[in-house]
């Protein structure tokens, strides 16, 4: 059953079916991790966890824990993912065995094909080639690029190591594929800072392109670029209208939430979202803003199937998005605001 779920179109299951599937499979996963990851067992024991009957009953592991501990449920680790660690000094470490790595790829393919079709497209990558050159220790950025690269061909990295646009290379690429659909991928901030800003006055025609970008708005919020502004400026400067942001965590690679034509992030069949009130951690209803918990059937080699993020978001609806996709759809409002320190806490120090 669980493997079949990746064969379906990823946005087909309606609430009842999906919940039944997820509860059943996540209970199995929880049991598996309980038996195979000692730290996870300690946590569930301490909190008096009992088998889940509803989605919200699963115990979420805070993402911070993947930075503090090496959590794994498998002895056969083939790859370790690390978060880019731009906002804090510690990085998440995610341990993958073959099975989990395969599921990640499978899930990603299903999701992307729904937006891109089955044909591999000529692909521009808004990054420098050296980002992906370390083969054994993957940063989240490299993992993202390599993951998405599966959907393209003629992979062309259009930035040099100093983040300057390789203009000749770009023009040549666009000329070669001017009559085809092309794929552009990059991290949101990079796309804005090093792509948009360097091409906006070049008078390019990118109306044949589809842009996927991810990585958060945090850096862009500071300079007041919203998703709407981002999209409209691209449309204006080069006719690029087919733009999809997507949301995902390094703790759950493969489980990504892609923005549909209506501007909503969608949960696929094998993943879900719960919004919780940050203090009591009680689940919130549709329309109420709170901290995002993500559930995914993919993580098997580490106990990351139910995680509590530090992002804030709102569930907008379920099964009824105008784009036709089933499942919950939501938006991400940003990161939890940093709390002010109270008490005799440190003045100086690192």
């Amino acid at each position: 059953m669980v493997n079949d779920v990746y064969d379906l179109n990823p946005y087909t299951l309606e609430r009842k079916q999906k919940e039944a599937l997820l509860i059943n499979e996540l209970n199995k996963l929880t049991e598996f991790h309980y038996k195979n990851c000692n730290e996870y067992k300690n946590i569930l024991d301490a909190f008096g966890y009992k088998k889940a009957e509803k989605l919200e009953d699963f115990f979420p592991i805070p993402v911070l824990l993947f930075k503090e501990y090496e959590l794994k449920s498998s002895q056969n680790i083939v790859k370790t993912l690390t978060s880019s660690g731009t906002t804090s000094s510690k990085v998440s470490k995610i341990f993958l065995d073959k099975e989990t790595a395969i599921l990640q790829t499978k899930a990603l393919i299903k999701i992307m094909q729904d937006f891109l079709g089955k044909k591999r497209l000529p692909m521009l990558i808004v990054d420098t080639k050296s980002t992906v050159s370390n083969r054994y220790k993957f940063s989240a950025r490299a993992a993202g690029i390599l993951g998405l690269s599966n959907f393209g061909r003629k992979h062309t990295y259009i930035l040099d190591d100093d983040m300057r646009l390789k203009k000749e290379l770009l023009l040549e690429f666009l000329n070669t594929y001017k009559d085809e659909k092309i794929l552009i991928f990059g991290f949101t901030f990079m796309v804005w800072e090093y792509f948009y800003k360097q091409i906006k006055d070049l008078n390019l025609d990118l109306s044949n392109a589809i842009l996927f970008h991810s990585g958060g708005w945090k850096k862009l919020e500071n300079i007041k670029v919203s998703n709407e502004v981002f999209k409209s400026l691209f449309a204006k400067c080069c006719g690029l209208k087919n733009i999809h942001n997507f949301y995902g965590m390094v703790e759950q690679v493969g489980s990504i939430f892609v923005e549909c034509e209506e501007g909503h992030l969608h949960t696929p069949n094998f993943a879900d979202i719960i919004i919780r009130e940050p203090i009591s951690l009680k689940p919130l209803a549709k329309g109420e803003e709170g901290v995002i918990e993500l559930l995914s059937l993919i993580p098997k080699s580490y106990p990351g199937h139910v995680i509590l993020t530090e992002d804030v978001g709102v569930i907008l609806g379920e099964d009824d998005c105008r784009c036709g996709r089933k499942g919950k759809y939501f938006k991400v409002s940003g990161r939890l605001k940093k709390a002010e320190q109270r008490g005799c806490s440190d003045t100086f120090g690192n």
Partner: protein
Amino acid sequence: MILSEIEFVIPKGVKFNEINTDEFLNPFDDEVLEFLDLLSKELLKLKEFNELVALGFWLRKSNIEKMKKNFFKKYENSIVLPRGVAFHIAPSNVDTIFVYSFVLSMLVGNVNILRIGQKTNEQILTLIKKIEEVLIKYPKLKNKLYIARYGYEEEINRFFSSICDVRIIWGGDETVNTIRKIPLKPTALELTFADKFSFALLDLNNIELNEQFFEKLYRDSYTFMQQACSSVRAICFLPVDINKKKEFWQKFEKFIEKKNPIFEDKEGITRFNAAVSMAIEEKIKVYRSKYLYVIKVDSLDKIDRVKHPGLGVFYDIDIDSIEELLKFSTKKEQTLSLVGIKKEGLLKAIKNVKPKGFDRYVRVGDAMNFSEVWDGFDLFSSLSRIIDVDI
């Protein structure tokens, strides 16, 4: 930043090279007492800022007079002179600690330089404004109190450290370690207040679980959201019927709910993260609700002082005797709030055990009351010079 650009909040516009380093007052100078009395009155009016009112209460005339009486009684056969220039480094967010610090120092006649951080909030701005308004009425004090606001500039710390006779570092092991690297004059002293952890010890057999009791326990813990050094973060219980203990936690939770303390969103997650992280390290049982987390551990050595996030989290430990807690205590322990325990028994236990930790034993409800004896120091004597005349 260069020294000439240090921003003095009080007095405004003063330059670093104009700081008075050779004119001091006598201990308990009348003008200082008047200044503090007026400041107290002004702070007591600010009902919207609990911590400022608490400070105003501490500064009230009768309390200062009491300190004065004790001081002169203690040193009746000595001459006490100010130590000189005191450099105070306040913690970033106990808004009022720096006042407690400079007030004691001012009372013994020192010139005071205070570093406050760049984070500001309404409470601290109001406090500084009040100090400024009141201070201006006492010309003699004009060159006795300097408040500078700056970030982490080592150069500034170096300068103030080079001219001071005593350096007082409030709060945080990291701060202490960082500042300690900066040399002082060979004749200067340093007082450091490291990270500390505080307990309550309850003998529920002798406690009536009424509102007054919970009000006191709440004050000892939820003031500063349990993040002051003297905040109760762990509760030890002397042997008691399990149902009485259950009743204690249930009633305490209800009481907190009624008080409805305000947490920031991020704090809710921080608290949860900490509890999960504690569960990885040690065998614990967690009870959680919106208002409190109870972390049950089966022995004192399971306590993780560093992971404890404050924010309404309590360790719950059953112990056999007060001696058990005293024997366990380390240099990290500061305050023990007690109730239901007899003084003679406590004194006997302290003398017998000679505990490494705990510098204060107070009744439940008094943990937050600042006093001139703190972390085992008599601040008055450390901030002054006791002159020995033997002729």
